[in-house]
């Protein structure tokens, strides 16, 4: 069955359209659930024939719609970042949270808030790009100086070390400048603060990041077969890697600046996508975006139901889903043969 899918573009298209439709249903469900449940019918009315007099319409338009849209976009961004990382490094454990990228972004955000409390949302987003870049630079430095290169296991361990380090420094700043709440929010990863401004930021980073990602898709497919092969085919690997990293930083930075460090989405979604869609990144990137969006929208619904009326940070939910998967990867591919 799966091998049929892998060889049929028609079936792949059908799966993508199916996922898109499921996503729309999931977003409607996400909007209708909440402190007061709003029937799906009212949700559709609120979106397509908005009446400012009706409270439930306001709730939908001002709170729940931007939140659901943000969840979808963030899930998509993190998954595409993960897919790019795994494709470029041929490392099954590569992903934004494992590599400390999300912690780097959170680190920069805390520093900005500590020293420039009046910083604008846009400034925060830029800061989180830079922080994410810092973490990536650290990881690659460790990789290039270490004996035997950056194996999957070393990558995971280096990521843990970098993440712990950056997180510790952030904690000191947040304790001293009384930013524990913001800090805790970013560490746990939450969607409760999202509004239309967040969607705006996400759309800007999405247009830049996803365009580059789609544009690179074919080259990443070649690169994922091995660097030598790619060089032999006349591909400029350095340029592709630089562009890939820019795309990763823009997508991850945008996502973290809005919702904090949501772990494991970028790790598991690309694996699931490859399992279904095969090895061609022309398909992996758009499908990762769709699957990731669906996963995070559903996780967000769970995070609001599990301890109602209080919200659980969505990052805790994605961790609980993601850990078994990580363990499976650790047993099969990460830990060597012995």
């Amino acid at each position, binding site marked *: 069955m799966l091998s049929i899918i892998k060889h049929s573009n028609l079936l792949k298209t059908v799966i993508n359209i199916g996922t898109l439709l499921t996503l729309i249903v999931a977003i409607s469900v996400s909007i209708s659930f909440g402190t007061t449940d709003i029937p799906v019918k009212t949700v559709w009315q609120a979106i397509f024939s908005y009446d400012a007099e009706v409270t439930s319409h306001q709730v939908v338009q001002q709170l729940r719609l931007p939140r659901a849209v943000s969840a979808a976009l963030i899930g998509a961004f993190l998954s595409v970042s993960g897919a790019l990382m795994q494709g470029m490094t041929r490392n099954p454990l590569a992903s934004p949270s494992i590599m400390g990228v999300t912690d780097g972004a959170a680190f920069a955000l805390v520093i900005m808030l500590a020293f420039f409390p009046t910083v604008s949302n846009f400034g925060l987003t830029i800061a989180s790009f830079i922080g994410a870049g810092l973490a990536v630079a650290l990881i690659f430095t460790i990789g290039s100086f270490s004996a035997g290169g950056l194996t999957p296991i070393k990558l995971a361990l280096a990521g843990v070390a970098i993440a712990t380090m950056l997180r510790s420094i952030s904690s000191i700043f947040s*304790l001293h400048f009384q930013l524990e709440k913001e800090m805790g929010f970013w560490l*746990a990863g939450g969607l409760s603060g999202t509004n239309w401004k967040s969607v705006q930021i996400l759309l800007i980073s999405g247009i830049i990041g996803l365009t580059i990602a789609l544009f690179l898709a074919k080259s990443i497919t070649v690169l994922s077969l091995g660097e030598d092969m790619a060089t032999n085919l006349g591909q400029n690997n350095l340029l592709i890697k630089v562009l890939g990293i820019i795309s990763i930083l823009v997508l991850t930075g945008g996502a973290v600046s809005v919702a904090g460090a949501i*772990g494991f989405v970028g790790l598991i979604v690309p694996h699931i996508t490859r399992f279904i869609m095969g090895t061609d990144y022309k398909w992996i990137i758009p499908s990762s975006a769709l699957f990731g969006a669906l996963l995070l929208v559903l996780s967000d619904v769970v995070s609001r139901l599990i301890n109602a009326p209080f919200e659980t940070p969505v990052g805790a939910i994605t961790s*609980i889903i993601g*850990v078994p998967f990580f363990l499976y990867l650790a047993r099969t591919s990460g830990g060597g043969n012995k």
Partner: protein
Amino acid sequence: MNRSTGIKHKKFFWISILLTALIIIMFFISLSMGVIPISPKEVLDTLLWNGTDQQNLVLFEFRLPGILLAILIGAALAISGVILQGITQNELADPGIMGINTGAGLAVVLFIFFFQDSLPATNTLSAFIMPFAAFTGALLAAVLIYTLAWKKGVSPIRLVLVGIGINAGFSAFITIFQLKMDPQDYRQATIWLSGDIWNANWNAVFALLPWIILLVPLALHKADTLNVLTLGDDLASGLGASVEKDRRTLLLLAVALAGVAVAAGGAIAFLGLVVPHIARKIIGPLHQYIIPISTLIGALLLLAADTIGKNLLSPTEIPVGIIVSILSAPYFVYLLMKAK
């Protein structure tokens, strides 16, 4: 052979004296520093029962228990790290990285969650039950990690990788339960997870002390077994060791030490990783020497980190685990870069 052993013994003796002296100096520095400064001479006077009421209160009720806890926790984590690195033949092993600390943390959080109404966290009885809860959680985590890493034997690398995963999973559960206890308060969860000597009172000291008195000599008693296990499974069974049984016993010991340390100090990472390395650098590979030296270094490091954390940005107190991480994460990265 005999002569070189004699020289080693002499070196061991002097290094122990030096480390003990450093701990005593640090002890006085730590006692005298704080929001209310007390000069070292006044500290000495107060310890000899000649202090003012205020000095008595500050030293005996606030600073002294915290300092003693730091020493005990540092020692426990260091020995736990020595044992873990010995039995897994893995120089990157550490109760923090491997998720054993987080397992203990989860058990403590669950304990507080279910019994907070009947037994407040500061209550004497719960201070003594807490280490048992932490030990159970740590043991559960260790069994889980060992089972999941088992695939015709346990490869050191897979053990650490599985540990990272378990760590992340337990952290997520801790977050969820912390929020259930007090939905508005993220602070406690953050501090607990980064490691903090949070409940520094005499009850906590007396709850931890018997465990240390019991477990440290046990670890020393097992030093020879550790020496044999470090040679590798094949050689060890060749020498007549029952490898798996010894490894399980020692694992239990390491888990107990980490668990009781976490009950008092939260999830302090990297200390158990770094200290054994320093000790091996100083004194060589024999565990008869490594264990006592690590105990002293661990106590000294955690006491120093605790003092830095309390005074660096005073009056803001930085959890001790954060200071330890910042000091030792770079060393971990260095080890990682060296490893093949």
